[in-house]
């Protein structure tokens, strides 16, 4: 179901004027979800599905077609087509979620309303923010969002990812691909290194004398031993990483000149993939629920520590031990959905449980994974148990791990979008 904006605004106004005690004398309790990714789409779907019509759920998401960031590296490696990463919101709408394609541009926490870019506002009893990430301005001197068409970040999937692939394909023979990797914490800890693997996979076939340089401010990174083993095995001599001991933390770029300055040494790049430091999606700042770069939440319910009527999911929240990943956001969404239903309709609330697994592809049929389970404590979401693939695993296991990741993609996208 799509809402005509005029009717929608009218509904919003009408609800707003009704004032909002927790349980209304008339009218259903109202949940607004901002952001239709792994956190937001899952939360909207689970609340609509499990409340069986008792809660009015509105999802605000500007894109009509959502491209998953997870698996977008596989597009760079030629393992997936962009189309296969796109998902629309039609099924969510048919499951009772009011999907509004617009930008949320402001939140009035006292009035409990969300303002929309297209005009009007929508009121809520509970608000769920799952806006993902934005980049910290000035994090990489010389780079700004205005440079993204020359030096793409490709850390929000879609046109940026397509641009990066086109640039890689257009690299001159023996050219140089530079990645400026982000500092912690950031979305998808193994993501930059899986990307390096996928770029190397493509270049090995099309441009085998090309070089890949990672300029990295971090001492170490996710699944490092596994990636380095894989790079040595599949892409020997192609990949160089400059860590902070060699100036990887002192980097600036010049997008017009296509140069990268690493502690005074200038590298000429044919492709420069800048992944700047990250912060919570802007709407969190607008709502004044951030502390530093992220929005702190309680692990029991994913409620903001600053406003109990707001829950924050996924990359944008500061919750404790979970990595920022689509899997984590999906896991947190279910805990939030249960808490929101409990608060608004009195349904049963069970103790929060969380889990995460991140698969990465190094080369054809060479998949690895890392994962953990978590529980809520009063202080944070705390790790309970975990595992990681081992170096030296046999090829059959690595192939099975890759196949499992493909199954997971099908599973989580079905879980998000219905």
């Amino acid at each position, binding site marked *: 179901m799509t809402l005509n904006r005029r009717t929608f605004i009218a509904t919003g106004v009408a609800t707003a004027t009704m004032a909002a005690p927790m349980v209304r004398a008339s009218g259903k309790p109202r949940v607004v979800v901002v952001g239709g990714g792994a956190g937001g789409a899952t939360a909207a779907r689970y609340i609509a599905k499990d409340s069986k019509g008792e809660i009015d759920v509105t999802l605000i998401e500007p894109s009509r077609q959502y491209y998953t960031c997870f698996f977008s590296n596989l597009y760079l490696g030629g393992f997936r087509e962009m189309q296969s990463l796109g998902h629309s919101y039609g099924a969510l709408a048919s499951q009772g979620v009011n999907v509004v394609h617009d930008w949320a541009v402001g939140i009035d926490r006292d009035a409990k309303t969300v303002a929309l870019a297209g005009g009007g506002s929508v009121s809520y009893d509970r608000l769920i923010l799952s806006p993902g990430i934005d980049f910290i301005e000035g994090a990489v001197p010389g780079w700004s969002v205005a440079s993204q068409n020359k030096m793409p970040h490709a850390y929000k999937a879609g046109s940026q990812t397509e641009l990066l692939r086109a640039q890689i394909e257009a690299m001159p023979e023996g050219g140089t691909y530079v990645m400026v990797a982000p500092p912690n914490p950031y979305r998808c800890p193994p993501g930059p290194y899986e990307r390096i693997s996928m770029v190397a996979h493509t270049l090995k076939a099309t441009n085998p004398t090309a070089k890949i340089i990672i300029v990295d401010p971090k001492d170490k990174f996710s699944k490092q031993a596994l990636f380095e083993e894989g790079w040595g095995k599949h892409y020997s001599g192609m990949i160089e990483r400059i860590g902070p001991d060699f100036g990887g933390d002192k980097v600036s770029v010049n997008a017009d000149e296509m140069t990268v300055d690493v502690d005074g040494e200038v590298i000429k790049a044919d492709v420069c993939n800048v992944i700047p430091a990250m912060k919570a999606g802007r709407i969190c700042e607008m709502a004044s629920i951030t502390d530093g770069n992220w929005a702190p939440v309680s692990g029991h319910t994913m409620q903001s520590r600053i406003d109990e009527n707001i829950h924050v999911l996924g990359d944008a929240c500061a919750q404790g031990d979970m990595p920022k990943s689509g899997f984590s956001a999906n896991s947190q969404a279910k805990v939030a959905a249960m808490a929101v239903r409990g608060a608004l309709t009195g349904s049963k609330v069970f103790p929060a449980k969380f889990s995460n697994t991140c698969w990465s592809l190094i080369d054809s049929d060479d998949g690895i994974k890392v994962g953990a389970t978590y529980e809520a404590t009063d202080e944070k979401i705390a790790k309970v148990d975990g*595992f990681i693939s081992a170096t030296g695993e046999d090829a059959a296991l690595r192939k099975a791990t890759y196949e499992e990741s493909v199954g997971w993609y099908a599973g989580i996208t079905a879980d998000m979008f219905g």
Partner: protein
Amino acid sequence: MSGVAKYLSAVALSAAAFLSPALAAEETEALGDADNGAVIFRKCQSCHAVGPDAKNKVGPQLNEVFGRKAGAIEGFRYSDGLIREGNNGLVWDYEHLDAYLNNPKALVSDTRMNFRGLKDEQERHDVLAYLRQFSASPRDIPEAQPTAIPKEIELSDEILAIVGDPEYGEYLSSECTTCHQRDGGDEGIPSITQWATEDFVTAMHAYKEKIRPHPVMQMMAGRLTDEEIAALAAYFAALED
């Protein structure tokens, strides 16, 4: 024949292939020795290839034979009998491979496989243990044939008698459905929808005890209580597609 009974003969084999020897000895009767199987397989090699780059010869290549429908390799010219049996539902699980190796023409009367059969039971088990290594996918996914090992752990009657709370199971299930599709889709990751509760409970306890090998599932099951496992079993058993 029930699904469980059908898998029973495969139990020991998969255990031998994937569990540590100590565990396998404890939990199952070890049947096949893959190394010895490799030697016996020389008798088959003039007609069958297996392993990387294996191609069809006089007989079809045998990679991924476990779980394959009979007569199903595209482009291979099978006897009418194998195609017929495939259409009748013959799938190469352990039990049927064992029978076929024992006497090919007894299982498929007009097969072109002119082999008098391996009469020694242990030899058959050994060669099947060897071949099993080339049907790796979906290894570690014990719900799927041919690695199904539903009886690898003995549970007390008390645990099996727990009646799960489906409402709690529904909440807990949301952790499963990040990977396992609720509608029963099983691409890369097996379906867990509409399992018999006893199979479900047994499987989850086997992960919890780290007898089944998959690290994600060991971790997920590892923190579930007996009641929570029962709740999940009750929920998924009743779930409609």
